[in-house]
């Protein structure tokens, strides 16, 4: 099967951007505002694909009030 990279590349790029945003956000956050340990979140973000990053943004931080 031939993959047309000009079609797939933007999708992969977007996923990468998402992961990078999540990791930057995690790196900048104070340890006590993060729910659980940071290392755990790194693993979730890296291996959880899109969902992992979303879960971090939604549930990872305490200062959002939830």
């Amino acid at each position, binding site marked *: 099967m031939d993959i047309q990279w000009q079609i797939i590349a933007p999708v992969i790029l977007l996923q990468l951007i998402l992961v990078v*945003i999540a990791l930057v956000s995690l790196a900048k956050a104070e340890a006590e505002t993060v729910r659980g340990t940071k290392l755990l979140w790194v693993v979730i973000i890296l291996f959880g694909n899109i969902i992992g990053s979303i879960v971090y943004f939604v549930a990872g931080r305490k200062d959002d009030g939830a």
Partner: protein
Amino acid sequence: MRNTLLLYGKEMLEMSRSYKLLWVPVVFILLGVMQPVMMYYLPELLAASGDIPAELASTLAVPSAPEVMAQVLNQYNTIGILLVVIAGMNLVAGERYSGTAALILVRRVSPTQFIVAKWLGHITLIAVSYSLSYLAAWYYSSIMLGSLAWQTTLQAGAIYLCWILLAASIILLFSTVLKGGAAALASILLLVVLTMTHSLLPSWFSWSPARLAVDAMSLLSGIGSVNLVGPLLLTVLAVLLCVMGASYIMRNQAIQDQP
């Protein structure tokens, strides 16, 4: 008015600080783009998995562009709405429980201005994310799966935008009453009830805002008549009610300390 604009600016700043202004659009765009890409490669993927006989695989046709756009809307209806609700679940609740609301409201800011600024912020975020995502899906569908009638596609997109903005307003209302998670659950339930009642008894609920979502999809696939004046008016009314209700509740709510 000036206060509202100030708070709106603060709201946008807050959203960019919490990276919401980045991740919500990116996830939305991915959601929109995935469907055309998946549908385009589906026959090849199925063939590569080797589980289905070759004759069957050859009969699987790549769907037409309008069909795929209808499927994209269907994706928004499930995951997209969930995203709208999750991104907004701490809109007011978060500020209330962290004490920021109290800090702002002891100044000369009326609860209405506060709520309207919150609402405008969320609406902006959702409208921009959705539009970018819809445009991306449109672009992908048309280059990969064939041309789309731009008038119909634009119309369907605009109709669907109203429905998604209603969802964004409903989460604002619930977020003033309940805590984050509970607010998200309540809004999802309300939206599901709206959709269910309309799909079970279409003739009784022909005025239901849920009709916007269904009609946008049938407009794309070219079936069914579209008469939107009733649902559209009701949606605008419902959005106004949500904002007014939220500011009314906010006004009469005792400001809470930390939980």
